[in-house]
């Protein structure tokens, strides 16, 4: 092993960038890990696992806690392969340091994008690919929490292998001490046993010696049948602190002598600050400084409310950079005409493509609105700048990426920036790289008042009006039917902000397909919003399929099944869903709608059970979901994610719409950007099909089917087809009332 690595990667080693195995570093580099993140009694056995002499095992998680349970699920995966005593396993946030860049994630994204199964690659190629991905992760400062990737990438390519490698090293250490063959040793409950002589050592007793070995590249992994921890609904370790007020979020960070900063950002996208008369607040109690940035005014004061109240007294003069004429209707027209006029770029063509569009043709156009993330914790960051050194605290979805971003803003090297990641009061994509405006403003504010730590907090109004929105998207479909009423052509053209989306591709057996996209950009900033492209293509595809079922006069669930004979997992989900939701036996006056969507490696089917009374009042009674997420690590945790995703999708489908007038966002707070609350929340039933398929993602896949299941149910109830969202913009009275006027 050692020789082969030397031969293959000697060149890399001399450049100081040797990467070993599935994101596992060699032992000489582990000393740096010990220095960065180990206590006096602890040693790292790989970059994700450290073991203390008292047998405590700490799994270092290269993600952030936004409540999805990965600080339990990932240790579960590592502990499984390590044969660890779960009672002695804890988890810890990886420092925002390049040493802890998440190579497993880069590898997972890379492989899934290429459609390559690493297990199918010859070992030689596999190693090469893996080492390469390690380099990519470090280069990209990758520590991102997104893409429903923690379990299926970090867990599969990182944690399981790290656990298995550590186990192998501990066995080797014990075998050397006893002078026996490693094969004659076994492990269970954090001990290595030599059964023949009835001797054993605890992992803590062996860790010093085990740490001398390099982690093996290809340690043997357990078969699924022998799992004892994976598949168990172990309680989440982060929950007790989230019931007693002690969990620390970015907004809770305390730095001695800290001041507070409140910001007013130019309301018009792309606009700038022209001038501001600060005289009106000079001498106000607590106000320390007024800072003018290129596109914002910041008041720094000793208290946040004093800063905010003083800021409200200012009347900044903005210059709109020609964007003041932007509004939702004009953006819609721009996208609509782009669909008509192009240039449309072909993404995928199957069979005869567009040439199959003949005979009976059905066409429909759909639209989704801009959406804000509206995390419960408004964006915030704390920063202090002093003597060419910057220290930042914030809850972000990529600690290492955020550190690199702050360094760039401050024009410092990575070494001059310290970044502390806190818990996140909601993420949903808002705190990903590419959406770091709050870090940008906090760093610039800190640099304008050196030596004073400042905590910059967006008010809810600033948070809602300066988000990176789920984009407004239009999608046009055309379908042709054969004489037996089966769809034979599926033609789809959609708008995009960044390129073609594989999420638009359907699982259904339609022989001729064509997908084209047209790029339309506007000054409205856009970003990833829980389930990203699937949040719109899920609505589009599952609405259009439902319309085709109606056109074909076939039951919509049966219609889908008839087009999924080649997809056994999809079929199994739908059939179970029909049973669980009582598809054939709705209650009197109730109507059901179904939708099915695969995203992030997980297939989710949902049925909405609704009624609409004679006054047009819509009631959502129950959502039933069936999911196949492949091998499930923590079933209760996955169920929680699906329940949450359904509520997230429901808020969007019922109320969610960000509108733009005069270049600015109209909505500002929860009264005009409504959320589902207890009173509007339907009963939710989630059933998991634990299948033999690979590990699927958990955080996002429950979102896409919700909106189409709901609008399909509304169609079943009323014959009214909603081709745009939200429902509150339509003629019905939705639960919780409507505040939106279209």
């Amino acid at each position: 092993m050692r020789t082969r690595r030397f031969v293959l990667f000697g060149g890399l080693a001399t450049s100081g960038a040797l990467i070993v195995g599935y994101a596992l570093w060699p032992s000489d580099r582990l000393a740096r890990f010990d220095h960065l993140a180990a206590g006096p009694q602890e040693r790292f056995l790989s970059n994700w696992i450290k073991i203390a002499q008292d047998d405590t095992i700490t799994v270092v998680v290269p993600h952030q806690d936004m409540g999805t349970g990965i600080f339990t699920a990932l240790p579960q995966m590592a502990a499984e392969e390590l044969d660890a005593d779960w009672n002695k396993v804890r988890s810890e946030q990886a420092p925002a340091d390049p040493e802890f860049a998440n190579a497993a994630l880069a590898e997972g994204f890379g492989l899934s994008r290429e459609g390559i199964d690493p297990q199918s690659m010859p070992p030689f190629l596999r190693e090469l690919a893996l080492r390469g991905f390690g380099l990519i992760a470090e280069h990209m400062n990758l520590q991102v929490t997104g893409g429903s990737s923690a379990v299926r990438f970090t867990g599969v390519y990182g944690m399981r292998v790290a656990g298995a490698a550590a186990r192998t090293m501990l066995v080797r250490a014990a075998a050397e001490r006893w002078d026996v063959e490693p094969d004659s040793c076994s492990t269970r409950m954090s001990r290595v046993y030599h059964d023949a002589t009835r001797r054993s050592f605890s992992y803590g007793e062996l860790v010093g010696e085990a740490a001398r070995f390099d982690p093996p590249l290809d340690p043997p992994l357990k078969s699924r049948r022998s799992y004892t921890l994976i598949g168990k609904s172990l309680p989440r370790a982060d929950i007790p602190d989230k019931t007693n007020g002690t969990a620390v979020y970015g907004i809770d960070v305390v730095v001695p002598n800290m001041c507070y900063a409140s910001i007013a950002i130019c309301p018009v996208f792309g606009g700038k600050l022209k001038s501001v008369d600060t005289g009106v607040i000079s001498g106000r109690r607590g106000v320390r400084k007024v800072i003018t940035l290129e596109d914002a005014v910041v008041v720094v004061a000793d208290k946040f409310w004093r800063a905010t109240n003083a800021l409200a007294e200012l009347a900044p003069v903005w210059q709109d950079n020609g964007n003041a004429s932007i509004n939702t209707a004009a953006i819609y027209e721009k996208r609509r005409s782009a669909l008509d006029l192009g240039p449309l770029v072909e993404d995928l063509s199957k069979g005869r493509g567009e040439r199959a569009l003949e005979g009976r043709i059905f066409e429909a156009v759909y639209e989704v609105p801009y959406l804000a993330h509206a995390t419960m914790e408004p964006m915030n960051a704390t920063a202090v700048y002093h003597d060419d050194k910057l220290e930042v605290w914030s809850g972000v979805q990529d600690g290492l990426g955020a550190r690199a971003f702050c360094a760039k803003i401050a024009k410092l090297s990575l070494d001059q920036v310290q970044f502390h990641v806190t818990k996140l009061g909601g993420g949903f994509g808002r705190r990903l790289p590419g959406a770091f405006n709050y870090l940008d403003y906090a760093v610039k504010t800190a640099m304008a008042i050196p030596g004073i730590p400042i905590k910059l907090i967006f008010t809810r109004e600033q948070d809602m009006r300066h988000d990176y929105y789920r984009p407004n998207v239009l999608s046009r479909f055309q379908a042709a039917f054969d004489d037996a009423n089966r769809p034979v052509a599926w033609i789809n053209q959609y708008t995009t902000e960044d390129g073609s989306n594989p999420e638009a591709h359907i699982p259904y057996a339609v022989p001729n397909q064509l997908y084209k996209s047209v790029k339309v950009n506007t000054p409205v900033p856009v970003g990833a919003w829980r389930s990203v492209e699937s949040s719109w293509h899920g609505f589009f595809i599952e609405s259009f399929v439902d319309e085709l079922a109606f056109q074909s006069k076939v039951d919509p669930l049966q219609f889908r099944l008839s087009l999924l004979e080649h997809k056994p997992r999809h079929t199994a989900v739908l059939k179970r869903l029909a049973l669980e939701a009582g598809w054939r036996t709705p209650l009197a006056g109730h109507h059901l709608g179904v939708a099915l969507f695969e995203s992030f490696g997980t297939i989710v089917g949902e049925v909405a059970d609704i009624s609409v009374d004679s006054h047009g009042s819509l009631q959502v009674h129950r959502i039933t979901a069936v999911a196949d997420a492949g091998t499930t690590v923590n079933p209760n945790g996955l169920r929680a994610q699906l329940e949450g995703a359904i509520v997230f999708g429901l808020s969007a489908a019922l109320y969610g719409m960000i509108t733009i007038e005069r270049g600015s966002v109209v909505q500002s707070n929860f009264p005009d950007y409504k959320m589902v609350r207890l009173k509007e929340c339907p009963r939710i039933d989630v059933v998991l099909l634990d299948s033999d398929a690979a590990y699927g993602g958990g955080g996002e896949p429950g979102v896409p089917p919700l909106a189409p299941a709901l609008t399909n149910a509304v169609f079943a109830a009323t014959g009214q087809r909603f081709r745009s969202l939200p429902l509150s913009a339509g003629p019905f009275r939705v639960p919780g009332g409507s505040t939106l006027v279209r």
Partner: protein
Amino acid sequence: MVELKINGLVHQLDLEPEAPLLWVIRDEIGLKGTKFGCGIASCGACTVHVDGVAIRSCVTPLSAVAGKEITTIEGLTDGGPTAIQKAWVANQVPQCGYCQSGMIMAVSALLKVNPKPSQDELDATVSNICRCGTYERIRAAVAELVASAEG
């Protein structure tokens, strides 16, 4: 000087009478469990008890609570976690957890006046927002508390 009684302790504060209770609790007293969510009494993340009643502290000026008993999530204790907090853990309610201090304070105020709320009563009374969507688990936890109150 304003006198404020929080979780049984008395504090003397040199602050404007209009200072919002939320920020006083968080940044003057240093109890960070009470959260800022909207600033306009809409989301409930800032819910605390004033004389046992759930109120939204982000719009409550200091002048309105002088001399009254204020309880925050940190003061909600039974010599350890309360039955509500235990039910929250047993049902694995929180996700990101940011809204849960307010949620628990709202539920505990309800249970004080109505120890056995129906689901409709719970839904109608507790209007706090949970963006992670933990509502079904909140209902399950409260149903468990109701069942044990009956048992």
